[in-house]
């Protein structure tokens, strides 16, 4: 059995930052493994630990910088990694969900996994659509926002709980091959062990260009254009009460009463 996990590094913006052109100035960005993907990797590794003969492969669309998070996934137990990148991709301002799914689908057609796990969304762009779009392109079954997964390999069935609004769980059986988008909290992601980090240095990490995936520049065409980025004006205001609790509690109660919150 083969599990393909899509992973990405996400930009985390410092508290104080400046915008340079379309994006936040690189000086104010640090990169880390996307939180949702951390849970997806953990879920895949747990499947590999529970079921014999499972290969876990990660796939990333990203520049060389993203190898840091790929190595992290390998250190946690993934067997090998594929990274998609070339100059044509690097020139794009924006990789939308459609484009990313197109590239990931090309890898998936080569790898032919039984199960694809994707984070619900990436923490920086937050399209929350890549996984589902990927399923559509592959013609696979899919389930989004999965917070519990029971896999029946013999039946080729994934029984999932999907987290809906208002605390409602939907229980669905999904036939494999399938794409599941994984919600945080489905498991407890492990720390990478030092032994794992050491072994990860020797695990295969293949870099593939568009051409190697049998694609051309048309795969990058997108109807979306990134037009501007700006910092919205802050409209709220905070009142800080200082003093002893018995005084400040009274002041807070007064404000709540005036605003019509309390009776």
């Amino acid at each position, binding site marked *: 059995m083969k599990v393909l996990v899509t992973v990405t590094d996400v930009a985390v913006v410092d508290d104080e930052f400046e915008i340079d052109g379309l994006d936040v100035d690189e000086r104010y960005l640090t990169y880390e493994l996307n939180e949702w993907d951390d849970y997806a990797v953990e879920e895949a590794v747990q499947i590999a630990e529970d079921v014999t003969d499972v290969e876990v492969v990660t796939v990333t669309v990203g520049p060389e910088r993203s190898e840091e998070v790929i190595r992290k996934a390998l*250190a946690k137990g993934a067997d090998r990694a594929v990274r998609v990148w070339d100059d044509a991709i690097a020139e794009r301002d924006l990789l939308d969900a459609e484009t990313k799914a197109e590239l990931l689908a090309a890898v998936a057609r080569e790898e032919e996994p039984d199960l694809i796990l994707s984070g619900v969304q990436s923490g920086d762009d937050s399209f929350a659509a890549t996984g589902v779009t990927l399923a559509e392109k592959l013609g696979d079954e899919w389930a989004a926002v999965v917070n519990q997964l029971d896999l029946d390999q013999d039946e080729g069935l994934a029984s999932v709980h999907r987290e809906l609004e208002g605390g409602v769980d939907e229980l669905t059986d999904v036939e494999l091959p399938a794409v599941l988008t994984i919600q945080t909290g489905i498991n407890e992601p492990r720390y*990478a062990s030092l032994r794992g980090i050491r072994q990860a240095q020797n695990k295969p990490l293949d870099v593939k260009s568009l051409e190697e995936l049998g694609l051309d520049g048309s795969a990058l065409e997108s109807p979306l254009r990134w037009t501007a980025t700006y910092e919205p004006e802050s409209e709220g205001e905070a009142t800080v009460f200082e003093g002893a609790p018995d005084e400040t509690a009274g002041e807070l109660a007064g404000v709540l009463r005036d605003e019509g919150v309390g009776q």
Partner: protein
Amino acid sequence: MDFALSDEQKQVRDEVRHFANEEIVPVATEYDTEEKFPHDLVEQAAELGIVGANVPLEYGGVGYDYLTNILIVEELFAADPGIGLSISSAAFGADALVAFGTEEQKEKFLRPVAEGDAIMGSAISEPDVGSDVSSVATSAEKDGDEWVIDGNKMWITNGSVGDYFVVVCETDPDAEGRYNGFSQIIVESDRDGFSAEKITGKLGIRASDTAELLFDGVRVPEENLVGTRGAGFLQLMQFFDETRTAVAAQGVGIARGAAERALDYAQEREQFGQPISEFQAIQHKLADMHTQTEAARQLTYKSAWSVDHADDDLTQLASMAKEYASRVAVDVADEAVQIHGGAGYVNDFDVERFYRDAKITQIYEGTTEIQKNIIARELLGKGMV
């Protein structure tokens, strides 16, 4: 010359930092206050390979070089020195087993430590033996195929929680030369006649276990001898350069932990209508603290690099790093409390603990005064005195 860490070293550093911030920082005050040994955290750290990082792969460790080991020590101590020491000391004495132990000893004693199933310790100091290691009075006499051990060991890290100790004993009292006649012998804590009394009321590193060990006719099999009979002191000395470099890394970690907390606090705390970090007096303190910490780190890295690659100047470097980094730890923790003002004098903030924890780095593994003696001795080209 290359000052950059490798990608792998950065990954190790970042993951240990992540572990330390998530698991150690939130409980540090509790373990300090209660003088409680962090069994669960030591076990968890061992499972992640943090305890046996430089134990060879074939005995369950990770086989990392000394510099990588030093990065780990800094991260643990920057989170909390007491719990940091509990974790990094769980393999105290392992170096002697790696270098001089038999295959059987390595399999029996190293693997459980690297895998988190056992805690070990190194027993050198005695009530009357501190800096003068060559006056060890704990005796081991051969009786048939057993060693019979009598005496006391003092200030032993992990003394009341350890499963076994590498104990420096006098085995040949008639040997000529003040450094001859000592041997390293493994003593398991479940042997008859062994007892340990936990020492409480320490100024700092209170999560770490410290005890007095009492040996009253303790019998261990002769195969518990580590290395060569009579060569114990020389075997021990081979690792002083490494253990001193490790204490230097502890100092760097403490200094960094205190300096980072002071930097954060200075930006939050407002007086006279502005954050105190806007005042030049505070800015200069912060600049000095971070500069000293970085200088101590570079000296420590060079000493660790020398352990791995070139031992020409190692003894001198290790003592320089240990003396300087421990002094920086004490000074930076002092300034961190000063920046916190009254808030730094109570344990609502971590710097109060760092201030107490820092001092031990100037005392154990050779006091500041001993380190200066060694540096001067190396400079003046004198032999061992």
